[in-house]
C-alpha cells in the first residue's frame, strides 16, 4: 500500500512536469476576443511593467513609451521601416539648409480625448513645459529649442539653438503633445493624474499594478482604430507572459520572447512569431581607464580573442545581427564596410606577448610586470541568463589566451552603480568588464555619445574611452555637418577610428522576437527596431 502511494505521488509530479512540456492543445481564446471582419472588438495585450498613468511625465521605461505612444501623438513618427514620416503635420514641412529652423502645419481635425481641439498653442506649450520638467529625455529635446513661433493658422516655426540634423528623429518623433489646459496650472507634470492625450486610444481605466484599458477614439483624425478596446494586464514575469499567450488569454505582449521557446509557439495554431531587426546592442564594456585595459593593444588582443560571431550564433541562432568593430549595425546606411571581427586567438597571444605578459602561473594565467595574474571580473545582470551565458563563453575564450575572467552576477541597479554611477560618466566607474546593452543604437548620435572623450558629448561613454583622433573628428568635421550625406561620411570616419582602437567588444544585435495571435487579429505590423504594439498595427487600412 505504502509503495503504491509513493509511486502515485512521484508519478503525479512527473506527469505534471511532462504535461507542462508537451505541445499545447487548442485552448479557448477567451470569449471577449471574437474576431470580426475589420478586427476584433477587444484584444488583450500584456504590458510587462506598470508604467503609471502612461502620461509623458510618469512613464518609467521603454515599455511605457511604447504604450503611451498609442495615447499621446507626436508631430512626426517612424514608420515600420524606421523612416521618419510626418504624423500630426502635413507633408509639406520645411527644414532649412542648416537644419536649425523647422516649419510645419498641423493637420486639421485633431482633438484631445476630452474633446477640446488640439491647436498650435498646445504644441508650443508642450515643448516649453517639458523644458522645466524632470523627465530627462523630454527636457533635453525641449532645451534645444531657442524659439517657437506660431505663424498664421496652425503653422509653427521652431528655431533651434544649434543646428541638429537629427532633430526630426530624436526630437519631434519623441516629444508627446500635451494639453495646455490640463498642465498649465501644475508646475510639476508628475502630479497630473489625468492622462489626456490626442492619440488613437484614450486611457479609459488604469488600476495600479493590475491593468490598463484603452478605448479607441472613434473620430481620430487618421481614422478610427481597427480594434475598439485594448485590455492590457500588467504581467511582469516573462514565463507567465508566454504561458498566457499559449493559453490564448493574451493576443500579444509588449515583451519579446527568447529563441528557446519559438518552437512551442510555432507548433500552436494561430500564433505567429514576428522577427524584426533589433537595434539594441549587446556588448562587453571594457574599463578603458584601468590598467592594463588602458592600452589600446590590450583591448585589441581582447577583440581578437573573443569569437563574436560564434557567441552570437550559439545564443541566438540566426535571429541576430553580428556586431562589427565599427560599433554600429552593419545594415545602417552609414555603416562602414569591412569592419567585421576576426576571431584570431593566435594574434591575441602575440599581442599579449608583445605587451610583456609572457610569464604564466601554474594554471596558465599570464602574469603582469609585478607577478600578479591577469585576473579580472566581468559584471553581469543576475536576471539576464543570456548575458550570463555570454560572459561565461567570453571567459572560456579569454582563458585560452591566458586571461582569467570571473563572472560576477549582481542585481541590475548594483551593476549600474559600478558601471555608471548616478548615470553620470564624469563620476568615473569601478569595474573591469561588464556585459552591457543600450535600448537603441539607431540614432546617428549613438556612436558619439558612446565614445566621445568630452563627456558633454559622450554622455554614454561608460567605458571611459579617450581617443584624440575620435575627439578631433567630433570637435571638427562633425560640427560642420549640414546634411545627411556629410553626416554619414563623418560617421564612417569615426567607425574606422574605433575599429583600430576598440573601446569595447560589440557582440551584436539580437532580433526582436514577438509572438502575436494572428487568429484573433491579423493586423499586426512589425516595426524595424520597434514593437508590434504600435500605431500602425491598429491604423485603419
Amino acid at each position: 500500500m505504502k509503495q503504491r502511494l509513493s509511486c502515485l505521488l512521484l508519478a503525479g509530479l512527473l506527469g505534471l512536469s511532462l504535461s507542462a512540456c508537451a505541445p499545447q492543445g487548442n485552448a479557448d481564446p477567451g470569449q471577449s476576443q471574437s474576431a470580426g471582419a475589420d478586427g476584433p472588438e477587444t484584444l488583450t495585450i500584456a504590458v510587462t511593467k506598470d508604467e503609471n498613468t502612461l502620461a509623458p511625465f510618469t512613464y518609467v521605461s521603454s515599455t511605457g513609451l511604447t504604450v503611451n505612444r498609442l495615447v499621446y501623438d507626436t508631430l512626426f513618427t517612424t514608420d515600420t521601416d524606421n523612416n521618419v514620416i510626418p504624423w500630426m503635420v502635413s507633408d509639406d514641412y520645411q527644414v532649412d539648409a542648416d537644419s536649425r529652423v523647422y516649419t510645419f502645419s498641423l493637420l486639421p481635425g485633431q482633438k484631445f480625448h476630452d474633446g477640446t481641439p488640439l491647436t498650435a498653442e498646445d504644441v508650443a506649450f508642450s515643448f516649453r513645459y517639458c523644458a522645466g520638467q524632470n523627465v530627462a529625455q523630454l527636457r533635453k529635446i525641449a532645451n534645444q529649442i531657442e524659439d517657437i513661433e506660431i505663424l498664421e493658422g496652425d503653422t509653427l516655426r521652431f528655431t533651434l539653438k544649434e543646428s541638429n540634423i537629427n532633430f526630426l528623429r530624436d526630437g519631434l518623433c519623441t516629444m508627446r503633445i500635451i494639453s495646455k489646459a490640463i498642465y498649465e496650472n501644475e508646475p510639476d507634470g508628475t502630479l497630473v493624474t489625468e492622462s489626456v492625450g490626442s492619440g488613437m486610444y484614450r486611457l479609459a481605466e488604469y488600476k495600479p499594478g493590475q491593468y490598463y484599458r484603452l478605448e479607441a477614439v472613434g473620430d481620430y483624425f487618421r481614422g478610427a482604430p481597427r480594434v475598439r478596446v485594448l485590455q492590457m494586464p500588467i504581467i511582469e514575469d516573462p514565463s507567465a507572459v508566454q504561458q498566457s499567450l499559449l493559453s490564448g488569454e493574451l493576443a500579444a505582449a509588449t515583451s519579446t520572447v527568447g529563441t528557446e521557446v519559438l518552437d512551442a509557439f510555432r507548433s500552436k495554431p494561430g500564433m505567429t512569431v514576428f522577427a524584426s531587426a533589433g537595434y539594441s546592442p549587446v556588448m562587453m564594456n571594457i574599463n578603458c581607464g584601468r590598467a592594463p585595459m588602458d592600452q589600446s593593444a590590450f583591448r585589441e588582443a581582447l577583440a581578437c580573442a573573443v569569437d563574436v560571431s560564434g557567441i552570437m550564433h550559439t545564443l541566438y541562432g540566426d535571429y541576430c545581427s553580428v556586431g562589427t568593430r565599427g560599433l554600429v549595425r552593419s545594415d545602417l546606411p552609414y555603416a562602414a564596410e569591412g569592419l567585421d571581427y576576426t576571431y584570431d586567438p593566435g594574434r591575441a597571444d602575440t599581442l599579449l606577448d608583445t605587451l610583456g605578459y609572457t610569464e604564466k602561473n601554474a594554471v596558465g594565467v599570464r602574469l603582469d610586470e609585478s607577478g600578479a595574474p591577469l585576473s579580472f571580473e566581468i559584471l553581469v545582470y543576475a536576471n539576464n541568463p543570456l548575458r550570463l551565458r555570454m560572459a561565461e563563453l567570453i571567459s572560456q575564450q579569454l582563458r585560452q589566451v591566458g586571461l582569467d575572467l570571473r563572472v560576477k552576477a549582481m542585481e541590475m541597479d548594483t551593476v549600474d552603480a559600478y558601471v555608471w554611477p548616478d548615470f553620470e560618466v564624469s563620476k568615473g566607474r569601478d569595474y573591469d568588464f561588464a556585459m552591457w546593452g543600450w535600448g537603441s543604437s539607431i540614432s546617428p548620435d549613438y556612436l558619439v555619445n558612446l565614445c566621445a572623450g568630452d563627456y558633454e558629448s559622450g554622455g554614454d561613454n561608460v567605458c571611459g574611452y579617450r581617443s584624440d583622433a575620435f575627439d578631433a573628428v567630433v570637435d571638427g568635421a562633425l560640427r560642420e555637418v549640414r546634411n545627411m550625406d556629410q553626416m554619414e561620411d563623418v560617421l564612417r570616419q569615426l567607425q574606422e577610428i574605433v575599429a583600430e582602437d576598440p573601446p569595447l567588444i560589440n557582440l551584436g544585435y539580437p532580433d526582436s522576437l514577438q509572438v502575436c495571435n494572428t487568429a484573433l487579429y491579423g493586423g499586426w505590423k512589425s516595426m524595424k527596431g520597434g514593437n508590434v504594439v504600435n500605431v500602425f498595427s491598429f491604423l485603419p487600412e
Partner: protein
Amino acid sequence: MKKRALHYLILVALVVVVNFFIPRLLPGSPIGTLVGENAQDMTAAEKMGVLDAYHLNDPLPLQFAYYLRDLFTLNWGVSFSRRLPITQLISSAAGWTLLFTCVSLVLYTLIGTLLGALSALRRRRGRDLPLVLGTTLAGSIPPFWIALLLLAVFGAQLGWLPTYGAYSMWQDYHGLARALDVCRHLALPVLAMVVTSVLRYFTTARYSVLSTMCADYVRMARLRGVPQGRVTLFYVLRNALIPVFTMVMMDVGYLLSGSVLIEAVFSYPGLGTLMANAVSARDYPLIQYSFLLSSLLTIAALFLADLLYRRVDPAMEVDHA
C-alpha cells in the same frame, strides 16, 4: 510583562531606524527612477537639482528627521517610481497579499500538521513512509518552479484556471460570482504556496508528536488505562501542537511580505511584488514604509505569541513564576 513590552518597544525603535538606513545603503541611486530613462540626457547640475527637491542631498541626520516627521504624521508622501501616495499603494496591495497569505497559511498549517501527526502516529507500523517521501519531495521543490509548473499545466495546457491577476479584470462580477472568481484566481498561487510550505509543518508536527508520545505523562496515562483515543487527542496532540503554534505565529509575522516569487509568476498584485519593484527602483519611501509595516507585523505577531503562550501552555506560567 512590562519589561517584556519594553523590550518590544526597543525592537520597534530599532526597526524604525534600520528601515531608514537600509535603502540608503544599497548601491545606486533613485535618480534613474526620478528622471526616467535616458538620465544621461540631464546635466549633473540638473540631476542635483532633482535630488535636492526630494531632500536626497541633505545630510543624513536631516533626512532622518524628515523621515521621522513623515512617519509620525502619517504623511508618507508619494512613491518615486509609482507616482501615487504610498498609503494608497500599500493598502491596495496589502489586501490581496493578506488574502493570499492567510488562506495559504491556514491550509498549509492544517495540512502539514495533520499529515505530520498522522505520520508520527503511524510510524511504528511503518506506514508513514509515503507521507514522509511525498512531503519531502514537495517541500524540496523551489516555489517558482512549482508555480511555473502549475501555470503551464492548469493554466496554459488544460485551461482550467486563469494565468494572471487576482480577479477577472474584464468582467464585472458581483456577490457570489465575484467571490468565486477571486477563488479561481487564488487557487494556483495558494496551491503553489501550500505545496512548498507544507514540509515545515509536517516535520515540526511529526517530531513534536513523536517526542510527546514518549513523555512520562503519556506513558502514565496509558498505564492508568486511559483509552488510546483519549490519550492521543488530549495527552499527545494537545501538547505536541505548542511548537506548531510557535511556527504559526512566526508565519503570521511574514504575512505582509507574502511570497515575491509566487506573486510574480501569477502576476498577483500583492505587496511582495510591490516591495521587490521598490527595491529595484531604489524607491526609498516605498521601501521604507512597506518594509516597516512588514517588520512591525512580525514584531506584533511575536508579542502576541508571547501573550498567548501562557494560555496555550500553562506550564510556562508556572516556570515563569
